[in-house]
Structure formats: C-alpha cells, structure tokens
C-alpha cells in the first residue's frame, strides 16, 4: 500500500524538476565495462521509450483532437466572418473592432462587477473554516453539509435561485421582515439587481469548495504553533489573524484562482437558467456572450474571437498569480 498521504504530499513535487529515473544512471559506469550488459541496458532503454510512447499515445490523441486542434481553429476562425458553413478572411483587425462594440464593454463590465464578489466568496468560507476548525460537537456533520452544494449542478442551483429571488420569494420576505421594505424588488427584473442575484448565488455555491480548501490548509498547521501563541498570551482572535491567516497564503492563492476561473467560465448554466443573460445584457458575461453570438445569432467567427479573448484573460490571470507567488517566495 502506498503511503497514507501519497496524493497530497507528492503534489509538491509536481512543479519541481522532472524527476529522472535512477536505475540507468546508477548502472551506467558498470554497464560501460561490460559490453553485453550495455547492449541489454540500451535495449531496455529503447523498450522504456517505446512503452512511454505507447502508454501516453491515447491521451495525446484524445487531447489533440478534442482540445488542441479546436483551439487552433478558434484562433483562425476568430479572424473570419465564419457562420459555421463558410468563412471569409477578415484579419486580426477584427479584434480592434471589438473595442468599438459597446455591448462588448457592457459584457466586460458584468465580468468586472462579478469580480467584486470574489473577496466575499473567500472571506465567508474563511470564517466558516475557522469555526469548523474549532472541532465543536458535530463538526464533521457540519463539514459534510457545508460542502454538499459542490455536488449539485448549476442548473439545479439556478432553478431554486430563480424562485428564491422572485418578487414574493424568500429573499424579499426576509428583507421585509427586517423592516427594509423599500428594498424589496423584483431582483431578476432589473439589470443590476439581476447581476447581484447571480453574484450572491455564485458566492453561495463557492462557499463549500473554499471552506474545504481552507479547512485542509488549517489542518496542516502544526498545533504547537498555537500552543506557543497562547503561552505568549495571544487571544484566539490574535492567533487567527497572526498565525492562521499568514500560514494559509498558498491556500488563499489557490482558492482565489479557482474562484476567479469559476466566475469567468463556469457560470454559463447558472445564467442560462436564472436570467438567460438578461434583462437586456444585464447578466451577459463573456462566456455567455460566446454562446449567444455563436448559437443564437449564428456569428461563429465573433463567438470564436470572444472565446479567444476569454482564454487570453484567464491566461493573464494565471500568469499574474504565478508571478505574485514567485515574488512572495
């Protein structure tokens, strides 16, 4: 049986240098003294290379056909007026014309506004994880329940959210009970409140994932650090702010990336069910715009271009966070 912590721990080596097998480097000098054995070793090495190609081939073919070729096609077709059947070359200038499209800016604004919910989607889980980490009565049951929405599809979440944000729905009821009656509204009926409803639903469904990530992080912290802090007279709150939060930096970073990527690329189903991108372009994010342009309007070229823009944005986010991380170390 492998080591009990095989998976999480070995993840650390993944970014390191390609680990080279030791067998042949160790046998090298001896083999060079012994001709027949060297021939054996080199045929073994050939066999090893053949096996490597053979075993990795199916994955390579699948990934090439389903992912690599389409991304190349998307780059090409993004510079054409493709309608799915015929395509005429327009050239890279078409990316510039995007900048003059007010709808594109409206869509980017929606993505930007959604980004404002990311800190909330990290802060709430941090608090919940800290509470869970106190290991009070039944905490494992709570952990299971809080993580549960991770298994539920955006379609189902959206289906409920539509009713929850409805004019006579629970949210408006709640607002009314707190005596804030003038804030009662048809959330999904107006552009910015609809986006707010989508953002709140998004935050709600990120809670489980981020809580588990933070909780995992907290359990890697050596308890003796806390003992030392408490011996020095630190209050619980101070220990949390000065010990827990700084030590969770990597986990924050990971949660941040996951949350941003989700906000940019995983909300299609939620928006499809909750608002259909409306009212107007009120909840159309970039990924939803891709779908609309291509499959509702038949503008496959524009859709492909928007898809590439989305890819570039996400690539930028990943690079920026990698850079940030390197700078911190």
């Amino acid at each position, binding site marked *: 049986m492998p080591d009990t912590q095989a998976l999480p721990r070995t993840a650390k080596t993944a970014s390191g240098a390609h680990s080279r097998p030791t067998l042949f480097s160790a046998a090298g000098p001896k083999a060079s003294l012994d001709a027949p054995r060297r021939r054996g070793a080199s045929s073994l090495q050939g066999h090893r290379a053949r*096996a490597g190609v053979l075993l990795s081939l199916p994955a390579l073919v699948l990934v090439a056909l389903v992912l690599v070729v389409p991304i190349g096609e998307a780059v090409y077709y993004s510079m054409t007026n493709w309608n799915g059947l015929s395509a005429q070359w327009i050239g890279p200038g078409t990316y510039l014309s995007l900048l003059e499209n007010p709808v594109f800016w409206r869509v980017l604004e929606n993505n930007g506004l959604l980004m404002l919910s990311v800190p909330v989607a990290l802060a709430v889980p941090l608090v919940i994880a800290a509470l869970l980490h106190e290991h009070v009565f039944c905490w494992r049951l709570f952990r299971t329940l809080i993580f549960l929405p*991770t298994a539920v599809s955006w379609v189902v979440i959206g289906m409920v959210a539509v009713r929850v944000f409805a004019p006579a729905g629970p949210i408006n009821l709640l607002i009314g009970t707190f005596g804030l009656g003038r804030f009662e509204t048809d959330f999904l009926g107006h552009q910015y409140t609809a986006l707010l409803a989508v953002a709140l639903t998004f935050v709600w469904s990120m809670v489980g994932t981020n809580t588990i990530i933070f909780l995992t992080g907290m*359990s890697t912290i050596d308890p003796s650090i806390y003992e030392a802090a408490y011996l020095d007279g630190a209050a619980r709150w101070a220990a949390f702010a000065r010990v827990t939060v700084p030590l969770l930096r990597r986990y924050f970073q990971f949660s941040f990336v996951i949350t941003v990527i989700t906000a940019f690329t995983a909300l299609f189903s939620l928006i499809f069910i909750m608002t259909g991108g409306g009212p107007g372009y009120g909840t159309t994010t970039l990924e939803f715009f891709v779908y609309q342009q291509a499959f509702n309007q038949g503008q496959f070229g524009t859709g492909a271009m928007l898809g590439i823009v989305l890819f570039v944005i996400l690539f930028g986010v990943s690079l920026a966070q990698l850079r940030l991380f390197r700078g911190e170390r």
Partner: protein
Amino acid sequence: MSVGSLATKDNRPDRRRPHAPKRGVPSRARFVLRRIRKDPASIPIFLALLVASGVMLYPFGFMLLNSLRSQSQYLSGSGFSTASWSALFSYLPVGRELLNSALVCAASIAIILAVSSSAGFAFAKLSFRGQGALFVTVIGCMMVPLQSIIIPEYVNFAHVHLINTYLGAILVYAGLGTPFATFLMMTFYRGLPEELVEAAVCDGLGYESTFWRVALPLAKPALATVAVLQFIQIWDDLLVGLLFLQEPTNRTITVGLGVLSSGRVVAIPELMAGSLISALPAVIVYLVFQRYLVAGLTLGVNR
C-alpha cells in the same frame, strides 16, 4: 487502507482527538458538557455552524417542500399534494434521461481512466523523446476554457455526424476531463518509489506489464478520485449536453431539466421535483465518496 491512502490532511486531527466513549447517551452528554465547560466559546460556534449548514441546506428543503405542492398550493404557500410528482413524468422522460446520464458518465469516465492512468504512468515513470513537451501540452490544456473551443468543436463534430450521438458527447467529455485526470494520476505515480518499477522490470516484467500489474493496482485510490470528480462534473454539465445531445431521446437529465425550465411553460412544483431527482445521484455519490472528492479538489494547492 487503500481508502486511507487518500485521506486528506484535514482528517488527521480527528485521529488524535480522543473520541467520546460510545457506551450510551449519558456518557456522551457528559463528554459534551465537559467540552463546553472547558471552552465556553463552543456554544456560539456550534450555533453559527448550525446556521451556516441551514443556509447551505436551504435549497434542498425548498425543492422538497415545493415539489410536494400543486401550482396553486405553491402560489398560496399552503397545503400539500403529490400531483406534481406524477405530472413530472409526463413532462420529462425521467427514466430515459437518467439512463442517458448514467451511460454518458460511465463511458466518458471509462475513457478518462484508461487514457489518464496510462499517460500518467508514462509521464511519471518512463522517459522518451519529447516527453517534456508532450506533458506540457496535455497539462496546459487544463487552462483552456470550454467556451474557447466549443464552437469549432461543434462544427467539427457536425462534419463527422457526431452531433446528437452519445459518442460525440462522450468524446467531448472525455477530452475535457483528460488533462486534469492525467495530472492527478501522474502526481500519484510520482509518489510511488522508483525501486518498485526497477524491481518489476528486473524481475522480467516489461514496462507495459509493470504498469498493468504493479502500478495500476496500487493506483486504485487515485482512480477513484478521478472517477468521482469526473462523475460530478459530467453529471452536472449543461453546455456540452445542450449542444451535442439535442434530441429529447438522448438528453441527459441535467440538459432535460435545463431545456424544460427555459421553456417556461411548466409549473414550478414539477421543476422542483425534477431538480431534486437530477441532484440526487450526484449527492449520493458525494456522500459516499466525499474523501476522494476532497482529495482531488485540494490536490492543486501544492502545485
């Protein structure tokens, strides 16, 4: 033990924590009382977690409660009936769609497991020309968002008549899941000692049979993690199904539900009943295989 090998780090403190004696209610109650006396803050923490769990569970209660109403009962907010459950089956071919979902999930996961377990082994334990470049290509595809490739994908598949076939959707799902699965498998194999492969090869096994008879049996927990992650991903997907499975007869349950809701002619209690049915399999898988899901999720932290 093979299950334990994927135990996540957040399980560790439980083991150290002394468990309450399970002899009877009184001793358990005394244990709780002792803990409360030791740490008075545990009561507000408990209550806060109770509230948080309530908020997370709310949608399930909402679905269950309102699926047990007729449309007029839903609007008035009182009374119960089972009418919507019987009506649901006339709107939504539930059995057929559940079967479609299961079929698509099973086939995609089988492909993903086959290609990622072998490729992961090749990348972790073998060396061949171009290995580094190929590895970067496969892993780099993790960063490609679905929306960036879905349009050319759709048109390509239309050219070879794979739209509205199970095979088309299965291939797309399998392709999308392979990069991360390969990364996960490779990470697992890297944790196996190098001597294991050397010893097997010295004993006369070829590299292929070393993979098949030595490494793969050890990788069961990693395979389970891949399978659980992919199951939830594929079961819950809408976009791929919406485009690649458009016939009412081959839709998955999630797609069927999405299409039903966008039509906006169906009564809300029936939609709630349908939602509950579509969520249930993934929730059960989650409850049973929770630790694998957590392991897969937090694997990326140390990347």
